[in-house]
């Protein structure tokens, strides 16, 4: 069983990190950096304003970057018959989805946290704010990954599923955004704990919601 788990994780990581011609992890990270770079151009070189709003910009950019890989998270494996073959071998959809969340988070969470360092420099954030942003991303990106997988599984096979997935993630990510970006306000440190709590709830839900969605797509 652990051999099968390792095989699944290895395949997911290879697909999501490198991702062939479709960009892999590089695409969300570049997108994230592009947003952080565009923002100073748009609001002008007002350093105090940038420093005050920069943390929030990083959070919004992270949320939008998490939407990019949604269309290749679940749908291709349903379409190519992978989920059917796994089911025949007694590998539950819940297990596959749990492994996928882990792989998805590894492929965009840590790279995004690394990219937040240059993004913070572009926005002129000080070291304390950057540390809070990093902690917030550590607490919040697992929730974003879980949310992404749930929505990708629910919209797999629907017409216009990819666009719909993006639209669905945004409102459902609002709690993560409020607590995560809220932790940057003076005295808002408890926001970090709440961000982590939201992430934990989402992670606990995702195998069951995702597994049920994949099974429902068969009929």
């Amino acid at each position, binding site marked *: 069983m652990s*051999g*099968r788990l*390792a*095989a*699944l994780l*290895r*395949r997911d990581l290879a*697909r999501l990190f490198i991702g*062939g*011609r479709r960009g892999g992890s590089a695409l969300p990270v570049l997108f994230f950096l592009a947003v952080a770079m565009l923002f100073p151009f748009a609001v002008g070189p007002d350093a105090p304003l940038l420093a005050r709003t920069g943390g929030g910009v990083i959070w919004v950019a992270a949320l939008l970057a998490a939407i990019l890989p949604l269309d290749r998270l679940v749908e291709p494996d349903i*379409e*190519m*018959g*992978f989920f*059917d*073959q*796994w*089911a*025949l*071998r*007694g*590998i539950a959809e819940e297990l596959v989805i749990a492994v996928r969340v882990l792989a998805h988070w590894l492929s965009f969470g840590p790279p995004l946290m690394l990219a937040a360092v240059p993004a913070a420099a572009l926005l002129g954030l000080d070291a304390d704010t950057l540390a809070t942003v990093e902690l917030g991303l550590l607490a919040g990106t697992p929730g974003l990954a879980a949310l992404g997988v749930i929505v990708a599984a629910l919209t797999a096979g629907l017409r216009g599923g990819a666009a719909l997935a993006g639209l669905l993630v945004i409102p459902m990510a609002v709690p993560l955004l409020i607590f995560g970006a809220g932790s940057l306000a003076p005295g808002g440190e408890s926001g970090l704990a709440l961000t982590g709590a939201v992430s934990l709830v989402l992670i606990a839900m995702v195998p069951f919601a995702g597994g049920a969605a994949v099974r429902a797509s*068969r*009929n």
Partner: protein
Amino acid sequence: MQECRLAARDLACRRGERILFAGVSFALEPGEALQLVGPNGIGKSSLIRIVAGLMQAFGGAVERTGACGLVDERPALDPLLPLGEALAFWRRIDGPTDNELARLGLSDLADVPVRYLSTGQKKRAALARLLGQDAPVWLLDEPLNGLDRSAAALARELVAEHCAAGGICVIASHQEFALPALRRIDMAEHAA
């Protein structure tokens, strides 16, 4: 070969508002094969998916002992990977096997990405995956589609060997299969 048995009682299938078929029953012992024939859209593929447990039957029940291997129009191989690596994923899932690539004449294609393979080559790759799975019950949905004459002969040979070794085979195909213990169900007789 693991012990296997496959029986269906009074199966019915509904797609949307329409009943596709009803009252399909059969029982297969080790070494026996069943061929499903009938016009397109009569529900052969649906019956195979019901037997595999991937689709809910509208009525009736399936009793099955032994693992199930399925070959349908989707090869379940990563299109971007070379064929050898795409099959290696299934070897890691199913356990190591002897060289089924050579058996299906795919040795030369191990370095070719799956997306460059032709329909027939993908079908042969799917058969290689099936061989590696070592399942006693084979469910084959149009296994000869896209195969050239020699590959089709090879596929028939594999089916015959599987049954001779005590496996069970359910085949949905318009082509003839010559097997000692082959039964046929004409799905048109069960159309609702």
